């Protein structure tokens, strides 16, 4: 702990010790795409007056380096700090930049690398995010959708059959374990930030919308290369952290209504997911807005074809629409196991939802009309959500669905080989395949049924159907994909046939969570004493590195271990999004 503090101080180049020093955003070691927009902010503790501070970039006045005028805010938001701001800054010239901020005898220093991009290599980028996609999800998806005989898999996943691979680290500026907002923000902006933040550094601002912004790849693609097309496709609510990361700037991912406005500001050509209530005026029953804006109407007025079913979506593509807003559920779109096999969840309420594969096909159809190329982000969101709810089977089926969507993009890319395809999680979950549960094994406790080592016999799921899904999931010998971190809950060791697992319910104190007793009644249910804090209601993200696979022009840059921010850099480099074109 001490060592790290010392290293931190050293990196900040602090001359004086003791009181908290000024903070400079972007933070030190930031990699900034040449010509990308960002907000430059320095916070001075003790709320000094403007005359008491001095700021330079490579020894020069920041305003002249960053091309915008500065503003000094004494006692910002009434707090005990003053702020120096240059909003909408840009640096066109690649190179090393040293920023110094002095207040009396206290000086803070940060280093930035501004990177340019060589000639454009890729026309298009498709970024596949398996939310929470960890190694065990990939392994399990391969076992169920390809089968395994005598220790050898009977086929490859589309995501595995790619020439380049890297280990990706996901920690944020504030903590070793991060969330989907900060994780996605690293991919879409190239800057690390903190939990809950999208497209901003986490400064002292009171309003969640005022923090120092950094430009997203969605915004960059729209204004560079003559105006590329942008697609955002998910099966979560479209306002959720991962899709929002393509367009949003907020310290708080829960700002759903603001995020809808940000989608409308950036105008990705394809926007597809769930989460319609935040698009509806508050006077409409079912709305979650707090104003009278009807964003479906606004998008329609801007030339978007609005679709709410699979049939409408496919018709829009056939009719040649160039802009599509698809909202297929009031909440998340149902996952593959419910959508295709069990018909649980909200399938009866929303009987014609597309799956991620059909969404991806339509998105590629629509976006590829733009001669300037496109950036498409496709997220299989519920791998994470089902891992939170300790629902292994649903997480595995949604990994198979992700793989099917990747196959669609690979087929698209094979025609011209001008598309960079990247597949990666955004953060890990603590999941591991420990063995198999076998109903035939004698014993009257769940743990008696768990086969480990030589007893972890191959599971007996039926051969997968044409889409790669085994049509029976509650088989007698099934994968034991277990979770390393959990609240108090009852483990049944079986798939949840009646709907997603709800492991906990809120306790009477309104703060902590207790086991959902519904599952404790099931035969062989094992009561687990949680190892997480009592406030936790579900499984949690972990700091484990992720496996990234990639193919197409620019993918050779993925190798060894990389910070998650490098995914942005590889995409920006492949597309030539830097200044000076």
């Amino acid at each position, binding site marked *: 702990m001490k060592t790290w503090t010392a290293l931190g101080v050293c990196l900040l180049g602090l001359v004086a010790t003791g009181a908290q020093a000024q903070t400079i955003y972007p933070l030190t070691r930031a990699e900034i795409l040449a010509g990308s927009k960002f907000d430059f902010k320095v916070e001075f503790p003790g709320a000094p007056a403007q005359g008491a501070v001095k700021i330079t970039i490579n020894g020069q006045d920041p305003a002249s380096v960053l091309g915008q005028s500065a503003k000094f805010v004494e006692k910002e938001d009434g707090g005990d700090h003053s702020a120096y701001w240059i909003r909408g800054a840009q640096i066109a010239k690649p190179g090393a930049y040293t920023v110094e901020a002095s207040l009396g005898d206290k000086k803070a220093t940060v280093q930035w690398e501004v990177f340019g991009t060589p000639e454009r290599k890729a026309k298009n980028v498709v970024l596949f995010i398996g939310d929470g996609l960890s190694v065990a999800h990939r392994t399990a998806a391969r076992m169920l959708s390809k089968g395994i005989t005598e220790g050898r898999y009977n086929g490859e996943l589309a995501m595995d059959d790619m020439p380049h691979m890297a280990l990706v680290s996901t920690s944020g500026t504030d903590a070793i374990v991060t969330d989907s907002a900060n994780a996605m923000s690293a991919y879409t902006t190239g800057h690390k930030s903190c939990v809950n933040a999208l497209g901003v550094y986490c400064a002292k601002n009171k309003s969640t919308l005022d923090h120092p912004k950094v430009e997203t790849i969605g915004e960059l693609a729209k204004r560079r290369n003559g105006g590329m097309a942008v697609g955002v496709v998910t099966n979560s609510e479209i306002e959720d952290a991962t899709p929002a990361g393509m367009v949003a700037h907020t310290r708080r991912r*829960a700002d759903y209504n603001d995020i809808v406005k940000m989608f409308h500001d950036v105008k990705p050509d394809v926007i597809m997911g769930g989460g319609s209530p935040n698009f509806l005026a508050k006077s*409409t029953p079912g709305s979650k807005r707090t104003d009278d804006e009807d964003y479906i109407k606004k998008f329609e007025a801007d030339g978007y074809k609005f679709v709410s079913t699979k049939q409408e979506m496919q018709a829009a593509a056939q009719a040649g629409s160039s802009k599509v807003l698809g909202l297929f559920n009031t909440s998340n779109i149902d996952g593959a196991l419910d959508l295709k096999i069990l018909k649980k969840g909200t399938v009866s309420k929303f009987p014609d939802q597309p799956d991620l594969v059909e969404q991806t096909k339509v998105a590629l159809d629509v976006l590829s009309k733009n001669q300037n190329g496109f950036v498409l982000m496709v997220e299989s969101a519920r791998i994470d959500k089902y891992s939170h709810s300790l629902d292994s089977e649903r997480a595995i089926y949604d990994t198979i669905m992700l793989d099917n969507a990747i196959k669609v993009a690979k087929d698209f890319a094979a025609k011209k080989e001008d598309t960079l395809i990247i597949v990666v999680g955004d953060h890990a979950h603590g999941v591991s395949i420990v063995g198999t549960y076998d109903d035939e094994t004698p014993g009257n406790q769940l743990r008696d049924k768990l086969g480990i080592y030589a007893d972890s016999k191959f599971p007996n799921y039926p051969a997968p159907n044409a889409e790669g899904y085994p049509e029976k999931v509650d088989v007698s010998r099934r994968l034991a994909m277990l979770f390393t971190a959990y609240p108090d809950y009852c483990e049944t060791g079986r798939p949840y046939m009646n709907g997603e697992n709800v492991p906990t319910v809120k306790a*009477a104190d309104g703060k902590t969570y207790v086991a959902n007793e519904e599952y404790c009644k099931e035969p062989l249910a094992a009561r687990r004493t949680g190892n997480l804090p009592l406030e936790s209601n579900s499984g949690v993200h972990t700091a484990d590195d992720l496996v990234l696979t990639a193919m197409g022009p620019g993918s050779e840059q993925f190798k060894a271990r990389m910070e998650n921010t490098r995914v942005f850099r590889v995409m920006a480099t492949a597309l030539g999004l830097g200044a000076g074109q």
Partner: protein
Amino acid sequence: MLTRRRFSIGAVLALLSRPAKAAEWIAFDTLYKSFGVRGFEFSDRIVALKGQEVTLTGYMAPPLRAESTFFVLTREPLAICPFCQSDADWPVDIVVIHLKAETPLVSAGAKIAVSGRLEVGSSTDPDSGFVSQIRIVDASYRRV
């Protein structure tokens, strides 16, 4: 469909045939007749019961303030919601309860039956800015 229709006509007839004294039981399942992506439609029975005394069972959500006359009633106990920090994360079919008198809200997470006057239609709470579609006001509740 048929069952619901017969049920709602029955309810209207019941209302017409006698002064509404005993509270009508309503249920989360029958608040809306459709849940579309472009919005919901209130069920005919809920519209007909506007302004009447009703009773609804559900789960008391953890209150926004400890001592209050205002809380949210949900169909299921609130469970998975890793980043529940705003009302944007509430389920869409919540019912807002305004109690007759300020009460310590000790029953969070418990199944309760709420009785009071039914209000239907979009409304924004002046204090909290909370938007609701269905409310039960001048209400009291008991554990069930």
